[in-house]
């Protein structure tokens, strides 16, 4: 299971991960970056490049961050709009 960008990215969007991704599967949305799970090859290059440790392997997503699996996976389905819609839903739901 591929890597997932979690909540810590919001407000940071450092983008070091984009520079080191060999398959260009990290995409920018309004508030955070996401990893397209259909393109990610699990190489792990991005994980330690993140200054706020927002990138976690799919197997190790903390329980309170599980919503971000679907938020990342929204990219191949509906691109930026779908990611932002799901993120909005998640935040209004958890607020």
């Amino acid at each position, binding site marked *: 299971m591929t890597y997932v960008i979690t909540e810590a990215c919001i407000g940071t969007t450092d983008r070091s991960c984009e520079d080191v991704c060999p398959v*260009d599967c990290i995409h920018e949305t309004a508030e955070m970056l996401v990893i397209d799970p259909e393109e990610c090859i699990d190489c792990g290059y991005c994980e330690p490049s993140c200054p706020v440790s927002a990138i976690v392997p799919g197997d*190790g997503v903390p329980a309170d961050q599980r919503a971000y699996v679907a938020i990342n996976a929204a990219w191949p389905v509906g691109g930026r709009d779908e990611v932002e819609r799901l993120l909005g839903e998640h935040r209004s739901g958890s607020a």
Partner: protein
Amino acid sequence: MDGHGAQREPDAESYFTGRDAWFTEGGDADAPTSPPPASPSIATVSEPAREIPVHEETDVLVVGGGPAGTAAAIAARRLGQRVTVVERYGDLGGLSAGGLVIWIDRMTDWQGTQVIAGIGSELLDRLPQDAVAGPGPELWGSTDPDEVAYWRERLSAFRDTVCKSPMIDPEWLKIASHEMLVGAGVRVLLHSWVVAAITDGDEVKGAIFESKQGRRAILAKVVVDATGDLDVIAQAGGAFVTDSETDGKGGNVQHCINTAFTWSGVDFTRWLAFKQGDPQAYRDFMARGGEAMGYVETPHVGWRDDVVVFMGPRLTGYSGLDVEHLSAVELESRRRMVAHLDFFRRNAPGFERAWIMLAAPQTGIRMTRRLAGLHPMTMDDWRAGVRHADEVGVSPSPSQKIATISVPYRALVPERLDGVLVGGRHVASDAPTQAFMREIPQCWMTGHAAGVGAAIAVGTGVAPRDVDAAEIRRELVAQGAYLHDAGVLAAS
């Protein structure tokens, strides 16, 4: 009906007799695991001091016969030194063979120049044609959309560029590695596990290994630690870093551990037609797998279209240095493999008759200990495009936004210990750098450099840290390695 050994072709259902499905929604919490160890009545026992037979004395002792150790041994032997490789398994190639890391990461830069060359490349060239699948040199660096689309699914095109990053048959890599070593005159000791460094103050003088013959010693002028886990340096009391302590970059990185696996009986062409022809159906398949198993690993085609490799299931929160963890990972990885086989046979076009070819005999460890070296490689250095004066290798960069990466000799040299050099995934680096320096080609590259450094140290009678880097660099180029200034060095 198959009374005389006629092959039975099981259907998807009957393959798993005795159990409806091996995957259980939300995991199978009731599945048994190995019980914890009983509490011992005493905390320690003392082992009596003993005399240990000296098995041999050599010039360069290479501990570990993986990609780094193989390259180191051949390189040192080419400089005329006596070399012995000690390997804990019964074969050579390490993670690239026994670990089923059969996808060899990129050896070319984004323009198609092969920047990881030398002994690793020679090994690939020795594989039979049918044992390697990858684009030919005429395609390296190509951005032709048709070529990119074809090779992308075979992990040989990245960021719209075709690269040298082939899939190989691990059995043939074992054979080629072994033949190349003994052909060069290297002594190869298998089934021998190095358990202690022999030291004199801060100098490593050899190692003690365990085998069916008990403990034996090998004395050496220089030792190359190609264990992947920095075992020799740790045994000698040398300094190392791990990511469980904050190292300034990435902090508490949870490295994944897994037992990778290969299946055969697969029709990869059909699978690809499904995946590419009906993206929504593929997405539904992945979603169903996610619901059934909690996650889905992606299959990659191997060196043939009827073999796939799963480079997971990646498990987090385990240490590659903890034997209880390693034991638990083997069980859990195989359970997940079986769940995947069940799910794929029932649901994935092209996988109806898949069968388990091999679960990796060697656990997939990405990182445990890294060397505390004279000059650790850092993301700051390579993002700034620093070229080191003691450059002994060049790594392809992760993306076109970053220039090719200069690897300094000082990243192979311990801060304090003498008589020992390091080659492999555990060279001195920060976590973002280790993310690619752990790949197979990079291990060939640093192993090659460590072998040359060790042999020159023996030949000139100086400590490895004091070897003239210019001499190492000239020799590396003479042995076919690539450096940024290889042309200049070759002419000198």
